[in-house]
């Protein structure tokens, strides 16, 4: 199992008019690529039948290797997603970049999904959503990934994950505590990479840190590299749009054996209404 990450989103800076919902919805299209998951983009003003689409005009052909759907509501209603790409906006000659994939429904992977596929270069891209009954699909953010960097080594044992709620608490004279929920859960992944021989693998992780610019640039962590055009597995969709810490380093514990500092990837806020 290989891990990977991505930091470049081809949708960044794209005008709202480049997005077309099959429902005709125009409101909130700018929320698809505004850089935060706070505000939801709704696929329609009212619930639609299965088969609704989101088409994107990238302006020119762009080679993509994955699409991340963040803060989505596709975990309810037996939802599937198919990715099409074409050189014309009619999608008359579309290729299937990613076959119809069922979206995981189990927490904590029920809100974010990444669809990886071999590189396809097209100007027009389309997401086709299948579901039971009618549904208004919504997304906090969508990422079109031009590059997924794969890490050579797998993480070492000792990795893990935690979730956190942000709360306020008041304690009375009797010790009774009254808490208020402010947000959450906020997901955090912990990693360690140990005993890496030579500097090449060490430098891969340091490059990832630099790509994140100390947490300034959000980083999409992809837990399992699965670059295939067929339907994705649940594991292959696991991802976390996250931030690294401000500092990172490494230690040579023995001759040519390097340990990179354990690090955390803290999930981006996706508290949306």
């Amino acid at each position, binding site marked *: 199992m290989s891990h990977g990450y991505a930091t470049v989103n081809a949708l960044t800076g794209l005008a709202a008019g480049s997005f077309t919902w099959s429902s005709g919805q125009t409101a909130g299209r700018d929320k698809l690529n505004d850089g935060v998951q706070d505000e939801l983009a709704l696929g329609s003003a009212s619930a639609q039948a299965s088969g609704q689409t989101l088409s994107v005009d990238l302006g020119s052909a762009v080679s993509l290797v994955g699409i991340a759907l963040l803060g989505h*509501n596709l975990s309810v209603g037996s939802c599937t997603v198919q990715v099409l790409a074409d050189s014309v906006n009619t999608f008359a000659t579309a290729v299937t970049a990613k076959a119809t994939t069922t979206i995981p429904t189990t927490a904590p992977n029920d809100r974010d999904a990444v669809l990886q596929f071999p590189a396809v270069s097209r100007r027009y891209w389309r997401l086709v959503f299948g579901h039971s009954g009618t549904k208004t699909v919504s997304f906090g953010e969508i990422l079109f990934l031009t590059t997924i960097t794969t890490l050579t080594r797998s993480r070492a044992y000792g990795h893990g994950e935690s979730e956190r709620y*942000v709360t306020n608490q008041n304690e*009375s004279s009797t010790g009774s505590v009254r*808490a208020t929920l402010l947000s959450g859960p906020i997901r955090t992944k912990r990693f360690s990479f140990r005993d890496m021989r030579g500097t090449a693998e060490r430098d891969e992780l340091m490059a990832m840190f630099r790509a994140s610019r100390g947490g300034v640039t959000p980083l999409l962590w992809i837990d399992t590299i699965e670059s295939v055009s067929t339907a994705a597995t649940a594991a292959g969709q696991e991802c976390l749009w996250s931030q690294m810490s401000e500092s990172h380093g490494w230690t040579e514990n023995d001759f040519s054996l390097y340990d990179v500092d354990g690090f955390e990837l803290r999930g981006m806020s996706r508290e949306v209404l």
Partner: protein
Amino acid sequence: MSFDTIAGLPGLERIIRCDVSLNGFSSIAYRYATRAGRYDGTNWWTRRIPTGGLGSISRRLGRDRIAAASTTSLVLENADGGVDWICGREHIADAAAARFRIYIGVFQPGPNPPAHTDIQWKQLGEFVCAQWPKQNNDAVQIALSDDFMGRLGSGLQLPTIADWKLVGNTSNNPIYSGVGLPSTLTVDTPLQLAFGEDWLLALPHIIAWGNSGVGQTYEAKIIVPICATADLSAVSQDLIQDVRVEWLPPPETLEDNQRASQVIAIQRSGSIQDGTANAPTTFTTWTVEKSPTITKGGKSFQIVYLVVRADLGDARFEPVGSSPDAAVARAVAGRQSELAYQGGYPPDAVDSIATPSPAGQSVTFARRAARVLRWYVKGRFSAVTNPPGTLGMEHSVDAMVDLVSVYSSATVNSTEAARTKAGAPFASCFGVVQPWTEKANKAENGEPLPLSLRQVLSALAQSSDIDIFQDWTGLISFASDVYDFTIASSIGSMLEFRETEVRIERWVPSAGERGAAFNRVFFDGGRGEPVLGEGVPFQGPFDVSASDIPVATRVVEAVFQQGWRPRRQQAQNPLTWRALDGRTRDRIRMRTHRGGLRLELGGYFKVTWTRGSSLGGPYSGSVFQCDGLVFNPADDSVDVEALWRDDVQTERSYILDDETLLVRSKGGLSGNCTENATPEVFDFGGTINLTTMGVVNGDILIIREASEAADSFLYNRTYRIAQVNSTTQIEVHTAHTETGHVTANAEWSIVRGATTYPTAISDPTNYPSGGDLYGKVTQASGLYSDSSTGNRLLSG
């Protein structure tokens, strides 16, 4: 469901949001929140309030009833420049106009994001920039305050003499075409506002005359500007009851500063007798008039002024060449020294020296009233809300409502204004509000005039024993210590905080603190009355005999302001009129959860603090009045300060009995009530069973026939029951003699009488042991037991 319904519950999720308007919330220009959301279902509130971005919101009733401002601070994320609109000199106009409404929203968290309708919101105030915003690389910091540092924090914008002149040459604008201005008065001097009924110092007079030129001096008028008013109704001569002038009498051989001034009344009209058989001729000395409407600062005003005869009513000094009333002219032509002069003005007050001048008689007129130092008038002029129909007391709350909502731009909580007014009937006021600072122009010996409306309102509130503050929703509201019906009737349902919800401390407030204990009072700010030649009334000390601290043990003094009290109240024992409370009261400070936001300043609630079962505590469902609230968004806690007022539970002032408990029977019964042929006996038909109903001797039969005329009382009256003859028949003490009349079953009832009231013994369910019953339906003497006029109900 509402915020108050769920705010005290555990396990809630919360959001803070801020709406920003640049036009007084005609529309919302910017929407910010701690979490993004479409909170109205349409518009997005963006996540710009970071953790800790909203400071504590502090609200409290001011010490000594000073109008205290609510304050907080707000940090908005601005890494993308999205909040640049309020930063820097180039945006100062928007920063000045910006008004912020801050809300807290709570909801039950669930697996899915809530619908916007699931969120229950509470407004935490309406604010303006207390300081201009500070900007750094990635954030904007804004210090916020409510309207007591906003709309009410500065002086009023009132019309000036110049504004008056500029409204055009209309028939009722005597200063349009020509005006002579005393050197002490600049044309841009704003007018004052006047409330209440006491003597008021008018502005210096203006000599005005028509455009017709020199020699037409009979058109000259003495114009005495009094004040501005937003009451644009037609002027009434009853607006002024009395006019007096302070003038400098002769001899001319002395310098002005060596002569003592005198105050003399000028009657509204006088009469003159020319020594002939002709009837006395009456003439008007002064009239009260209003200027044309003047628009300033988006508001409409009129100026109230006096027009006084150029000779101040002294008929003997009608100028040569003028055209006075014919009868007056005859008098002037007659034997002046024998004129029967009534009313008017002592002739010496008019500067009668005709100064030779090429300009002619106008110079003479310009010197008319030159000896007058000050003009005093008596009336209430600027009142708009509930102005007295004739000269009378003006309530302080009405004056404050006018100042806040009519003469300024804030909005009043009319419900609380009416309630506070009703609870403090003696809180009347007198005073002027001037947009300038010269205290010499005020008819009182007091402190320098306040500058800001907030200070004016503070002085007014202090004198009136009323608190003024801005409530959660941004309305200007009022509170008093008065134990009124609303409080009395809500004791059973008051919000209660138990010790599982609070951390608490208590103390008796000392001098300087709000609610401090005292047993001796002094008053400050009392007014002398130069018009009447009277000094400042006795201002204390007055000992409070009922104080919990015996004077003999220790004298604890307190000073209260009374500058805005009417002089008649100042001149009497102030304790007669003031709502001063000498009782020693605990003060508590407690920290509780977000449920504390359900409280409002001035509101009442209960506290239980037992300190455990063995030690015992001071409060078990004790009533307190909230006078301080601080919401801390950092941990969602609410700090509450409050004053012990549990005596509202033991010293009842109102009839709080449930009248339905007095009713034996009422409507819906199948029996009609028929007057028997036998005097004083009533029969009831149908299935009536008076015994089952519990009717006994001493109960009251009430007959209310809707069809009976208002001036007839045969079937709109009560009878005291003397005897229950059977299950369907009663005998009353006195009945009228008409027999056989049938009253429908819906129009009669029987209630308990004075001797048959429920008690803890007869009705232990509703009247627990030791319980009191207040009020009586009638008296044991049988006051309503006969048909004499005085005993009739309704119109009788």
